[in-house]
């Protein structure tokens, strides 16, 4: 027999193994679809469902000044295709009743002496009150009104040396914290990474068992450990690509802010990918067929991720037992981490605890699957 030098041999085996794994993936349309079609489809679906264009939204005006400037602003808003002024109200108490009747989505409340203030203090305030029972629409409406105000402000300041400032005060009523907005990107990202990493690996490992090729591999000089690493490696790579695709799509399509460090986001994602891969390996050690692996992945991983991770239902409003259970779900911690990085722009000093928990879980799952794997070999 002719053997290559040991180190080169190991590397060559590994590369050969990975090449083979990519053949499997790229030749199977189903896995290709799950790998790349699904993340894009999910992001687009959620993205478009949430970034609804607004059109002719009914709003009401409460104008305490009734001067030239407010009239001009009102005209501009009325002239835009986005809004139509349904009603002019006269007193503050009408705001509540008009919202309750559901006639308008937003009320613009100009302060008294708007023009005068603008000239005297070069600063005037208008309150934008939106009905946030539909938080996404409310957010969009307030953004659009803001944009119109800013445009007007620019026009005002064009030929004047000092600056007039119109200060919009936004108030969201009925759901002031807008809890569900932007929540979906971290959620979808978590689900996709979990799905790709855990389900796809567990299926691909059990497939080798089902086809009998696992036995052949175990009889070969290649070590069981190398087999597993070789099998999960391509999925680490593909999951990272997926994470990038999701982040890029959400930035460009949904205008999702990424306030924090992209590097940190990347590293945390890799950690979560490894957690999921470890879970995938664990699933593959306890299931004999691809179908079982898929069922366990879907029921055992996806459902808890969707229901208990805080993705759709806020954990704070769950019954206490479920809140306790939610702690053992890796996705919960990952969602906290990426929300922190993407939305709040926090650094590692604020999320080290969650990171450690995730790391601990990963080590635990890997340890457990190594143990299970050995038992199976017996």
């Amino acid at each position, binding site marked *: 027999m*002719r053997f290559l030098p040991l180190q080169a041999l190991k590397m060559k085996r590994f590369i*050969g193994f990975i090449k083979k794994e990519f053949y499997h993936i790229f030749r199977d349309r189903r896995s290709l679809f799950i790998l790349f079609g699904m993340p894009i489809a999910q992001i687009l679906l959620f993205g478009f469902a949430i970034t609804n264009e607004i059109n002719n939204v009914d709003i009401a005006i409460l104008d305490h000044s009734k001067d030239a400037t407010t009239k001009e602003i009102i005209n501009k808003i009325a002239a835009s295709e986005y809004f139509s002024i349904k009603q002019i109200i006269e007193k503050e108490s009408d705001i509540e009743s008009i919202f309750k009747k559901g006639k308008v989505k937003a009320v613009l409340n100009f302060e008294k002496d708007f023009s005068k203030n603008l000239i005297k203090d070069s600063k005037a305030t208008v309150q934008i009150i939106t009905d946030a029972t539909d938080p996404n629409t409310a957010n969009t409406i307030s953004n659009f009104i803001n944009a119109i105000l800013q445009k007007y402000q620019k026009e005002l300041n064009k030929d004047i040396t000092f600056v007039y400032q119109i200060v919009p005060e936004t108030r969201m009523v009925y759901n002031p914290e807008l809890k569900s907005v932007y929540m979906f990107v971290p959620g979808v990202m978590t689900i996709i990474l979990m799905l790709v990493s855990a389900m796809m690996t567990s299926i691909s490992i059990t497939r080798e068992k089902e*086809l009998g090729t696992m036995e052949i591999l175990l009889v*070969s000089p290649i070590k069981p450990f190398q087999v597993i690493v070789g099998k999960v490696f391509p999925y680490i790579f593909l999951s990272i690509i997926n994470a990038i695709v999701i982040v890029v799509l959400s930035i460009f399509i949904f205008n999702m802010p990424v306030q924090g460090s992209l590097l940190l986001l990347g590293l945390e994602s890799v950690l979560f990918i490894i957690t999921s891969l470890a879970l995938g390996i664990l699933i593959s050690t306890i299931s004999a067929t691809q179908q079982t692996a898929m069922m366990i992945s879907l029921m055992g991983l996806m459902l808890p991720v969707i229901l208990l991770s805080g993705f759709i239902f806020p954990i704070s409003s769950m019954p206490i037992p479920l809140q306790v259970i939610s702690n053992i779900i890796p996705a919960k911690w990952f969602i906290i981490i990426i929300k922190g990085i993407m939305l709040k722009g926090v650094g590692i000093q604020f999320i080290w605890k969650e990171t450690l928990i995730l790391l601990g879980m990963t080590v635990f799952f890997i340890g457990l699957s190594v143990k299970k794997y050995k038992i199976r070999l017996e």
Partner: protein
Amino acid sequence: MSNNKVIQVEGLTKMFGDFAAVNAITFEVEKGEIFGFLGANGAGKTTAMKMLIGISNPTSGKATVAGFDVYTHPEEIKKNIGYMSQKFALYDDLTVKENIAFFGGIYGLSRKRIKEKSAVLIEELGLEKVANKLVGALPLGWKQKLSFSVSLLHDPKIVFLDEPTGGVDPITRRQFWEMIYKAANQGTTVFVTTHYMDEAEYCDRVSIMVHGKIEALDTPKMLKKQFKVENMNDVFLKLARG
């Protein structure tokens, strides 16, 4: 190796709880021999074989394969044996060439060697036209022959075949046995389990396992004489029915 015995087994036992799947079997296999390992379903053939190829730990007893101890040097054994399982075990979604390259690769063959080998192999099997086709598209008989050739790719000292001819037609079975003979003539020891008693006749020596024990072990000719029957089928029936 001090002698020509490539497999030496003494009192090899595998317990699953209280149940002895393999109960103190003892036998030897010589270099270049075609050794038939027979037994009914559940007699313990596959379990015994798994211990020899290093994927199952014996409970007790001694065994060396290709001169290496199954307890202490399973990795050395793996380098020196080929294995073909009863399930067909090449990758359907890889081409003939890719399968050869992959398995050659995990056995540590150099790229040049793999090229040479695969050219010879493809020619011998007459697979030139389908060399770049997915294995999944080939008829079962071809796959089986290819699978056997792949298990011989790294020139192993011993090749273990676990019911290699299950489900193939008589002509292919015939061709398959011709390949086995060829390998044996070139010095490869063949350790084969089978259900087909006519195939048992082709073996140099056969052992018959019943309930975890080897109840008979000799050349087909001597076994027929011993049990005073015409063919191996009757030998088997006599033994299995006790």
